[in-house]
C-alpha cells in the first residue's frame, strides 16, 4: 500500500476537480464501445459461434436422414427454401438464447444501465452483434446445405437472388430476436420461452422469406412473380418490427 500512495493521492485529487474527466459521450461512440465489447468477447470464447455452427451441422444431418428414403432427389428443389429457413431459425434461436448470458452472469447489464446512455443504443449494438454472428454462421452453413443437398441438382440461374431474402430475413431475426431475448433472459424456463414467443412472432417474415428463397432456387417464372413482393414485404416487416422494438426497448431492459 505504501508504495502506491502517490497514485492513490492522484485518485483523491481527481475527486476534487468536479467532473473534469467526463465529457458528453456521443451515442455513436457508446454504440461502438458496446459492439466492440461483444465482438471481442465472442472471438475470445467463440461460445455462440461454435455452438451455433455445430448445431446447424447436426440439423443438416437430420435433414439428410429425413430424405434418405426419397425416391428422386429432384423433389428437394421446391422445399429447399423452406429447409434453409428451418435451419436458420433453429440455429438463431440457439444463438439468441446465449446472447445475453454474459450480461447476466455477473450483473454486467446492471452496470451498463447505470451509465447515462440511451437504452436504444444497447438494443442496436446487441442486434448488430447478433446479426454479425448469425451472418458468420450462415456463411458457413448455407454453402454446406448447397453442397449436401443441391450440388447434384440443376439449380436455376436466379440462385444468387436467394441472397437478398436471406439477408433481409436475418436482419429481422436479429432485430426481433434481440428484444425477445432481453425479455426471456430474466424469466423462468427462458430457453423454451424464447422459442414460444419468437416463432409465432417471426411467422410473417418466415413466410415471405421462404416464398422468395424458394422462388430464387426453383426459378419458375410463376413463382418469380412473387419474388419482388415477398422481398418487399419481408423488408417492410423488418422496418416495422425493428422500429417498434427500438421504441419499446427502454421499457424492457429497465424492467
Amino acid at each position: 500500500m505504501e508504495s502506491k500512495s502517490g497514485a492513490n493521492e492522484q485518485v483523491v485529487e481527481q475527486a476534487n476537480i468536479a467532473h473534469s474527466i467526463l465529457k458528453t459521450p456521443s451515442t455513436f461512440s457508446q454504440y461502438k464501445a458496446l459492439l466492440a465489447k461483444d465482438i471481442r468477447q465472442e472471438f475470445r470464447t467463440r461460445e455462440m459461434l461454435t455452438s451455433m455452427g455445430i448445431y446447424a451441422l447436426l440439423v443438416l444431418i437430420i435433414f439428410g436422414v429425413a430424405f434418405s428414403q426419397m425416391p428422386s432427389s429432384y423433389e428437394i428443389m421446391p422445399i429447399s427454401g423452406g429447409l434453409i429457413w428451418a435451419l436458420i431459425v433453429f440455429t438463431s434461436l440457439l444463438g439468441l438464447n446465449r446472447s445475453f448470458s454474459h450480461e447476466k452472469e455477473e450483473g454486467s447489464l446492471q452496470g451498463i444501465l447505470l451509465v447515462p446512455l440511451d437504452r436504444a443504443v444497447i438494443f442496436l449494438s446487441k442486434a448488430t452483434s447478433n446479426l454479425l454472428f448469425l451472418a458468420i454462421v450462415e456463411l458457413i452453413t448455407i454453402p454446406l446445405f448447397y453442397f449436401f443437398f443441391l450440388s447434384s441438382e440443376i439449380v436455376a440461374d436466379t440462385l444468387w437472388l436467394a441472397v437478398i431474402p436471406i439477408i433481409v430475413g436475418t436482419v429481422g431475426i436479429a432485430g426481433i430476436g434481440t428484444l425477445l431475448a432481453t425479455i426471456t433472459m430474466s424469466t423462468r424456463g427462458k430457453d423454451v420461452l424464447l422459442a414460444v414467443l419468437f416463432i409465432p412472432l417471426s411467422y410473417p417474415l418466415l413466410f415471405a422469406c421462404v416464398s422468395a428463397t424458394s422462388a430464387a432456387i426453383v426459378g419458375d417464372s410463376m413463382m418469380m412473380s412473387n419474388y419482388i413482393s415477398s422481398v418487399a414485404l419481408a423488408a417492410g416487416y423488418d422496418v416495422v418490427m425493428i422500429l417498434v422494438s427500438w421504441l419499446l426497448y427502454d421499457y424492457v431492459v429497465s424492467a
Partner: protein
Amino acid sequence: MKKNNQNTIKTDTLAIEAKGLSKLFGVRRALDGLDLKLPQGAFLSIFGPNGAGKTTLLSILSTLARPTKGKAKVLGFDLNENSDDIRGQIGLISHRSMLYPDLTAEENLLFIARLYGLKDPKGRVDELLDAVELTLRRHDTVRTFSRGMTQRLSIARSLICDPKLIFLDEPYSGLDPHAVDILDGLIAQIRDGRSFVMVSHDLQKGFDLSTHVLMLAKGKEVLFSEKENLDFEAFAQQYRATVGMGVV
C-alpha cells in the same frame, strides 16, 4: 423543480432527499412511505432484516428501479425527470462484480470508461488499476482472478466516472481479509467530498464507517439518526429486536 444544466453540484444541495417513497410488488409493500434527508459528505448505513426494503431502496436511489409512489432528489436532481444527470455522478459497488469474465482487467475498465465517455480513458484506467493494485494483472482475463481481485477490479470499475455518491450493496460479503483491507483503504481515500449509502449485514463495520444510520423493517423507518447521538451497544440491542420482529 430546479433545472440544473451543469454537471456541477451546489454544495448546499442534499445528497439524498426523499419524500414518501413507496414500492409495491403486487400487494406486498417493499417500501412504505419512506422520508429521508442526507447531507453531502455523509456516510449512511442501512440496516434491517431480510425483506425490509434495503436493496429496493438502494436500487430506487441508484435509478435502477422506479418508485411506485413518492418523489426523490439525488444530488439535487429529480429521480424521475433527470435520471441521466444522476447516473453520471453515482457509482454502485455490489457483491456482483458487473464485470465480463472473458475480458481482461484493462478491457473491462476501458469498455466502461468509453461508455461513460471519459476524456482520457486510457489514463483513467491506468490510474485506477494502480489504485487497486492490479497493474501487473491488467492483461489477464477476469476469469483467472481470485474473488478478492475481482472485487477490487469491480470497485475500480464503479469509481471510473469519479462518482459523487457511491452506493455499496453488501460490499464486504465474500471478501478475503486482504480485499477487505483494500476496500477499507479505498473508501477512506475517496471519503473526502463524497457521499456514501451502504447496505450491510455487518453491524460493527457498518456502524463504524457511518455518519448516519437508518434502520428499516417492512419498508418503514424504524430509526434514523446521526451516529453521534447513538451508543453502539444500545443500537445493537435495537437491531436485534428489529430483526426478531422482522422475521416472518
